[in-house]
């Protein structure tokens, strides 16, 4: 695409999107045909059997991708569907991880900590959401950002969370006597979470509730005028995002067998944000692609090191100016 200065002035990036869509048009056509079912089926089989034909390194990367998909699906409900700019997602993730970490080191069965973590996630989402969800998106962004930071500071300074070094030696969970230990075990655990997450996301999307979220994103006042109770729906989308992140945090804690405040820095929130923006906000295939690229990018460009966040920033700005809908094309034109 030519870079004449006049193109920069286009607020609607129609030209670039049609070009990119011609390239991705193949995907769109495939979506309507039976070929799609075979392709997707093949993909699912490949993903489900990955541990059978790969070494531990690949499985670990795959596990990481699946974990990020869980976080991204959650944030997608909040930002992608409902349009709420939550920049403190890392905080919800932290609460889930620390809840499991603290309870497990006290001897509680891992599987029991999950419902507790869910309750904690709901509570935290309400605490920050109820006062702040009525604010403009700009305010919400900074408030959630601040909340994320405060959570990290609290985690670093409180003794119950193990201070700056965090919690270590979190016992591994067992399922009907089988102990989840290996990379492969956790790969499948996250795969199950992803499957649940994808199903839930699709179901939400194709329902009255999901449409209500999107109406709120498009025009909050018109949504209210159509009988949608906006505060309740915003809070619910916030809570859903929190639950996804919290449950992801639980499994993260036992997979790493430790939790430290450094896993919840602001970069964690921006990573997830970048992934869903790159893939395409509000589109589930987009979220999957975005999360995959997020994890693969530093693996492929090994030397990138400290340039990673810088390039993420560049990608975000370029995306917004030239292709705000992300990589995955919009369904209807």
């Amino acid at each position, binding site marked *: 695409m030519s870079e004449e200065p006049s193109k*920069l*002035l*286009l*607020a*609607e990036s129609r030209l670039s999107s049609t070009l990119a869509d011609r390239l991705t048009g193949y995907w769109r056509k495939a979506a309507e045909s039976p070929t799609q079912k075979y392709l997707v089926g093949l993909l699912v089989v490949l993903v489900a059997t990955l541990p059978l034909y790969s070494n531990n390194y690949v499985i670990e990367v795959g596990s990481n991708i699946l974990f990020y998909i869980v976080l991204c699906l959650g944030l997608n409900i909040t*930002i992608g569907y409902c*349009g709420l*700019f939550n*920049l403190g997602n890392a905080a919800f993730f932290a609460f889930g991880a620390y809840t499991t970490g603290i309870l497990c080191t006290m001897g509680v069965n891992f599987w029991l900590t999950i419902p507790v973590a869910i309750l904690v996630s709901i509570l935290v989402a309400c605490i920050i959401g109820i*006062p*702040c969800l009525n*604010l403009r*998106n*700009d*305010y919400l*962004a*900074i*408030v959630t*950002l*601040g*909340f994320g*930071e*405060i959570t990290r*500071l*609290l985690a670093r*300074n409180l003794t119950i969370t193990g201070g700056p070094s965090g919690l270590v030696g979190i016992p591994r969970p067992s399922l009907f006597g089988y102990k989840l230990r290996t990379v492969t075990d956790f790969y499948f655990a996250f795969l199950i979470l992803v499957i649940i997450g994808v199903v839930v996301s699709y179901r939400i999307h194709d329902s009255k509730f999901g449409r209500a979220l999107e109406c709120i994103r498009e025009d909050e*006042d018109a949504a209210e005028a159509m009988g949608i109770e906006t505060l309740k729906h915003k809070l619910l989308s916030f809570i859903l995002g929190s639950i996804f992140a919290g449950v992801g945090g639980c499994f993260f804690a036992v997979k790493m067998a430790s939790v430290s405040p450094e896993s919840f820095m*602001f970069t964690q929130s*921006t990573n997830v*944000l970048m992934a869903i*923006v790159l893939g395409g*906000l509000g589109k589930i295939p987009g979220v999957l692609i975005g999360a995959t690229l997020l994890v693969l990018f530093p693996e492929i460009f090994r030397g990138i090191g*400290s*340039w990673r*966040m*810088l390039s*993420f*920033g*560049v*990608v*975000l*700005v370029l*995306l*917004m*100016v030239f292709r*705000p809908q992300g990589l995955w094309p919009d369904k209807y034109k």
Partner: protein
Amino acid sequence: MGWRTIILQQIVNGLILGSFYSLVALGYSMVYGIIKLLNFAHGDVYMFGAFIGYVILGLVSGILGNGWAGVLVAMVCSMSIVGVFGVVIQRLAYRPLYSASRLCILISAVGVSLILSNSVMVATNGDYIGVKTAFTNAGIDLLGIHVTFVQMLMVSFTAALMVVLSSFISRSMVGKAMRAIALDHDTCRLMGINVYKIIAVTFFVGSALAAAAGMMAGIYYGQIHYFMGFLIGLKAFTAAVIGGIGSIPGAMIGGLILGMLEAAGTQFPHVGSAYKDVFSFAILILILIFKPTGLFGKSEIERM
């Protein structure tokens, strides 16, 4: 006896902190007033100003030394360069998105923030850089506390900048245009005001002020770091909210109030320095719940 010195010392601390917060908060308020965007990257502009100032100080200290002369030149240069930089950022990352959805421009701002902070991180390898000046702790002893000349100069410089800004806003054509645009974009366009140019000027002024604050902070605390903009961004936002976002006198007073509150907060037994950030954040949440328009802000009733 002890109480009095503590209070006086905290007042001085509060003034210093307040100066930083006010200068950065001004940029937030001005930009929000004119395009209804909370410029997420503003804190990083502050950081950028500190670094540019440091670099220029290094360049001129060979000729002018790193005392008053060198610092003054570096300050003026830093403010101008970063001001222009702010205009460029606005042109590339924000202006194409004025007619897009609000979320787009917010995400772009996050991207700009990442670019600014991480390019400095790459350049400095993430190290804390020491800033050396010829300034000493020389000062006067007043009522039992020691007030340095540097502190007095910083506060007066900030006050001077604000006086200049106020008269600029209220007297000059550009200033008047800024206020008009804040009230009604479309009518201004019809009146022939070049809205884009005025927005650019707003970004210039806001960024220059933030750069001034950044450079002062670098000199005062003696070191700069690529992540220093993050926290100050949050605090300055809090200050802007306290004063009423969009209001320029509000930003000035809000900064002062927050500085004082924070200085006072460090003296509470459970808060201490570790939790002073939590303390500021708690203030933000309380204000947003109970008085979101702040002291001077207008309550927005959207016309339907």
